[in-house]
C-alpha cells in the first residue's frame, strides 16, 4: 500500500531523520494514515414500517465498508474516502422501500463516480470525499471535497455531521487567506452528498447527487478594537437533473437564491461578549427554481437574524440568544429529500429531545424567539437552568403537523458531575406547543441520564437512560386525518467493561410512539431488546457484534434532523487504523 501511494504521488515513503541540522534541506516528511470501517448487517425485517404497506417483511444482508486515507507531504495533503455497499438477498428494503429486483445502482451516474465492478449490480463502490489541500499558517487552498461555513451558519453551513452520519461537502475549490488582521474566504463548487451511510440502511437513491451549484465569499476584519466585523455573500443555483450534467445545465442560468449578510462580534464590551448576524435573501428565480422553492407560487424576500450575548455574574455564566428566520429554511427544501442542508442556523432547541412531533420547529421557515441559560460553576458540579420561547408560523414545513401557528415554551434543567470516580450527565426538559384557535396543545416531558462509574480493578460501568412522555391535546397533532394519541418512550442501555479491551452492553426500548413503533422484537409490540459486545484484539482494531432490535426515531444534531429506521437483526462491525 505504501508503495502505491508513493508511486501515485511521486514521493519517497521515508521520513527524514531528526538529526539533520539543516531543516530546509530535509526531505519532505511523508505521513500516511488509513482507517477502515466494515459493517455487515443481517436485517430481519423492514426497517421503516411507516412507508411499507403489506407484503411479507423482507430479509436481507447489507455489507458496508468505508475506507479513508490521507497522505501529508509537508504543507500538502491528500484525502480520499472510498465507500462500498453490497446487498445480498431479495427482497431487501432500503429506506422503507421494498426492493424485489436487483437495483440499478448505476442509474443516472453519468460522468460521476460510479465504478463498474466485477460483482454486478449488487455492489456499489464510490470514491467519495477526495481533496488536495495546501495549508500554511496564513493560507489554505483546497481543491476537491471541502466544507464551508460563514458566520453562524445562517447563509452557509455545509459540514460533516458525524453525530448523525450526514456528510455533505462542496466539491470545488476554496481559498482562505489571513493577511494580518484580515481573513478572506472564496469558494465555488457543487454539493456532494455522501451516498453510503454507516449507521443507516442505505438509500435506493444511490444513483447520484443533484449537484446544486454554490459559490460564496466572505471577508472578516479582526481586532478592530474589541470587535470583529465580517461580510459575506452566497449564491445558489438548484438543479433537478442528476449528476454533473445537471450542474452543467445550470451553470449558464441565473442563480435561484442569493444571500448577503454580515456579522459583528464584540469581546468584553460592558463585561459581555456579543455576536450578531443578519442576512437577507433574494430569489431571482428561473422557472425551475421557482417550482422548487416556492410551492405557494409567491416569491418573497427572506431575512435571517441572530444575536447572542454571554457574561459572568459571580459563579454563574449566562447566555442569552435570540433569532428570527423568515423564508430562509426554504433554501434547504430542494435538499431535504436527500438528507442534507445548505444552511444550518442556530436552533436554540435541546436537539437530543427532538422527536417526530416537535421536529418542525427545528426546521421552521418562519420562526422567532429567544432563550436564556444560566450555568453555575460549583467545583465538580455544574448545574444549569434554561428557558426559551418561540413563535412558529410555518405551516408549509413537511414536518409540521399543526393546522395553525403555535407558541412554544420550554424549560430545561441539567447537571454535570465530573469527579475521579463518577461521571453524571443529565438533562430534563418540559416543552409546550400551544396552537392558535382551538387546536389545543402538545406537552413533552423529557429526561436523559448518563452515569459512568468504576467497578472492580480496571472495570467500569456506563448506564444511560432516556425517557419521555408526550401528551397530545384533543385536536393538537393532526397527521393526515388521524389524531395522534399521547405516547411514551423509555430507553435504557447498560455497559459493563471488565477491561479496556472488552465490554458488553444491554439495550432495552419501550415505545408507544406511533411514528416510531415497528412491532417490537420481544414478543410485545412495544418492546425492543438487544445486546452488543466489543473486543479489541489489538490496539488499532475493534470488533463489535450486535444482536437484537431497536425502535425507529428521529435524531437531531447540529441543526439537522434525520429519521433513523428501526432495526431487528444482527450486525458485525470491524473498525481499524493502519
Amino acid at each position, binding site marked *: 500500500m505504501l508503495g502505491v501511494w508513493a508511486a501515485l504521488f511521486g514521493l519517497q515513503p521515508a521520513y527524514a531523520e531528526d538529526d539533520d541540522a539543516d531543516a530546509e534541506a530535509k526531505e519532505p516528511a511523508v505521513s500516511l*494514515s488509513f482507517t477502515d470501517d466494515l459493517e455487515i448487517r443481517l436485517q430481519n425485517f423492514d426497517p421503516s414500517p411507516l412507508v411499507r404497506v403489506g407484503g411479507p417483511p423482507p430479509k436481507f444482508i447489507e455489507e458496508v465498508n468505508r475506507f479513508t486515507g490521507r497522505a501529508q507531504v509537508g504543507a500538502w495533503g491528500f484525502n480520499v474516502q472510498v465507500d462500498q455497499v453490497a446487498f445480498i438477498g431479495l427482497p431487501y428494503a432500503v429506506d422503507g422501500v421494498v426492493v424485489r429486483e436487483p437495483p440499478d445502482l448505476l442509474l443516472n451516474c453519468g460522468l460521476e463516480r460510479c465504478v463498474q465492478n466485477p460483482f454486478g449490480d449488487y455492489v456499489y463502490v464510490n470514491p467519495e470525499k477526495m481533496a488536495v489541500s495546501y495549508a500554511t499558517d496564513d493560507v489554505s487552498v483546497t481543491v476537491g471535497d471541502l466544507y464551508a461555513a460563514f458566520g453562524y451558519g445562517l447563509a452557509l453551513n455545509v459540514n460533516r455531521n458525524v453525530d448523525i452520519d450526514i456528510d455533505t461537502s462542496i466539491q470545488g475549490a476554496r481559498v482562505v487567506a489571513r493577511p494580518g488582521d484580515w481573513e478572506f474566504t472564496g469558494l465555488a463548487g457543487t454539493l456532494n452528498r455522501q451516498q453510503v451511510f454507516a449507521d443507516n440502511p442505505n438509500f435506493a437513491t444511490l444513483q447520484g447527487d443533484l449537484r446544486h451549484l454554490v459559490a460564496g465569499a466572505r471577508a472578516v476584519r479582526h481586532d478592530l478594537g474589541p470587535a470583529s466585523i465580517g461580510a459575506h455573500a452566497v449564491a445558489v443555483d438548484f438543479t433537478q437533473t442528476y449528476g454533473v450534467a445537471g450542474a452543467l445545465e445550470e451553470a449558464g442560468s441565473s442563480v435561484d437564491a442569493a444571500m448577503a449578510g454580515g456579522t459583528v462580534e464584540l469581546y468584553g464590551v460592558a463585561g459581555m461578549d456579543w455576536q450578531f448576524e443578519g442576512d437577507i435573501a433574494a430569489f431571482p428565480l428561473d422557472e425551475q427554481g421557482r417550482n422548487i422553492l416556492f410551492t405557494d407560487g409567491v416569491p418573497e424576500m427572506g431575512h435571517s437574524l441572530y444575536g447572542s450575548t454571554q457574561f459572568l455574574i459571580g459563579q454563574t455564566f449566562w447566555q442569552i440568544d435570540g433569532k428570527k428566520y423568515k423564508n430562509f429554511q426554504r433554501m434547504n427544501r430542494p435538499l431535504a429529500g436527500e438528507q442534507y442542508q445548505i444552511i444550518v442556523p442556530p436552533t436554540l432547541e435541546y436537539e437530543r429531545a427532538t422527536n417526530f412531533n416537535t421536529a418542525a420547529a427545528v426546521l421552521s421557515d418562519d420562526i422567532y424567539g429567544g432563550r436564556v441559560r444560566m450555568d453555575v460553576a460549583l467545583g465538580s458540579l455544574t448545574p444549569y437552568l434554561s428557558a426559551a420561547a418561540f413563535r412558529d408560523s410555518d405551516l408549509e414545513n413537511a414536518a409540521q403537523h399543526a393546522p395553525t401557528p403555535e407558541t412554544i415554551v420550554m424549560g430545561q434543567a441539567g447537571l454535570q458531575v465530573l469527579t475521579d470516580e463518577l461521571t453524571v450527565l443529565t438533562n430534563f426538559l418540559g416543552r409546550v406547543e400551544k396552537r392558535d384557535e382551538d387546536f389545543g396543545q402538545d406537552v413533552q416531558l423529557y429526561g436523559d441520564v448518563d452515569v459512568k462509574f468504576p467497578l472492580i480493578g480496571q472495570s467500569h460501568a456506563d448506564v444511560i437512560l432516556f425517557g419521555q412522555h408526550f401528551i397530545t391535546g384533543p385536536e393538537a397533532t393532526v397527521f393526515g386525518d388521524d389524531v395522534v394519541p399521547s405516547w411514551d418512550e423509555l430507553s435504557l442501555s447498560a455497559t459493563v467493561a471488565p477491561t479496556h479491551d472488552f*465490554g458488553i452492553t444491554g439495550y432495552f426500548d419501550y415505545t408507544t410512539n406511533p411514528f416510531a413503533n415497528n412491532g417490537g422484537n420481544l414478543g410485545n409490540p412495544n418492546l425492543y431488546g438487544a445486546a452488543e459486545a466489543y473486543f479489541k484484539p489489538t490496539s488499532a482494531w475493534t470488533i463489535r457484534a450486535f444482536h437484537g432490535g431497536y425502535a425507529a426515531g428521529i435524531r437531531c444534531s447540529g441543526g439537522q434532523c434525520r429519521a433513523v429506521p428501526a432495526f431487528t437483526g444482527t450486525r458485525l462491525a470491524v473498525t481499524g487504523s493502519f
Partner: protein
Amino acid sequence: MWTRRAMILATAGTLLTPSLALGATATGFTLRNLAGDKVSLGDFEGRVVFLSFWATWCGPCKVEMRHLHGFHEELKEKGLTMLFISIDDARAGMAVKQYVRSNKYDEAIYLLDKQSEVVGIYNPKKSVPYGVLISRDGTIAKVWEGFNPGEEDSVKQAIVTELEKTG
C-alpha cells in the same frame, strides 16, 4: 437507542494508533480562539503540544477533558500546551464558550474550526474524542481515538515522556 448506541460506541473506541503518521512533521495551521485572537501551531515551537478534538455533544470528550485540564495545569510549566479544537459546526462558538466558562476551563486554549480546515488535516474521519501529541521538535508522537475511563494514565505517561525527552 440509536443515540445510545452512538454514545456507547464512542466510549468503546480506544487508543487506535495510525502508526504510519507517527514521526511526521505536524502541519501548521491558524485558527481563532474564543476571544477572537489568532492562534497558530507555530506559536508553540519548542513546546510539547496536545491537540484535543472534541464536540459539545460528546459525553466521553467531557470526561477526558477534565483529565486533560488537570494535566495541563500540572505540566504547563514544564512545556506542555493544550489546544482544544471543537469540531462543532459554525453555530458552536457560543456553546463552546458556555461549556468552557461554566467549567472554568479558561486557562486552556480553545479554538474554533468552523470550516473543518484543521480537522481535515489531523482527523478527517472527524472522530471524537481524538488526541494528537506533538513533540518539541514538531513531529507527531502519538495519536488517540476514543476514550475509556482509566486510560488517562497512559495519556499522561505519554505526555510526560515527551516532556522529558528534551526538556
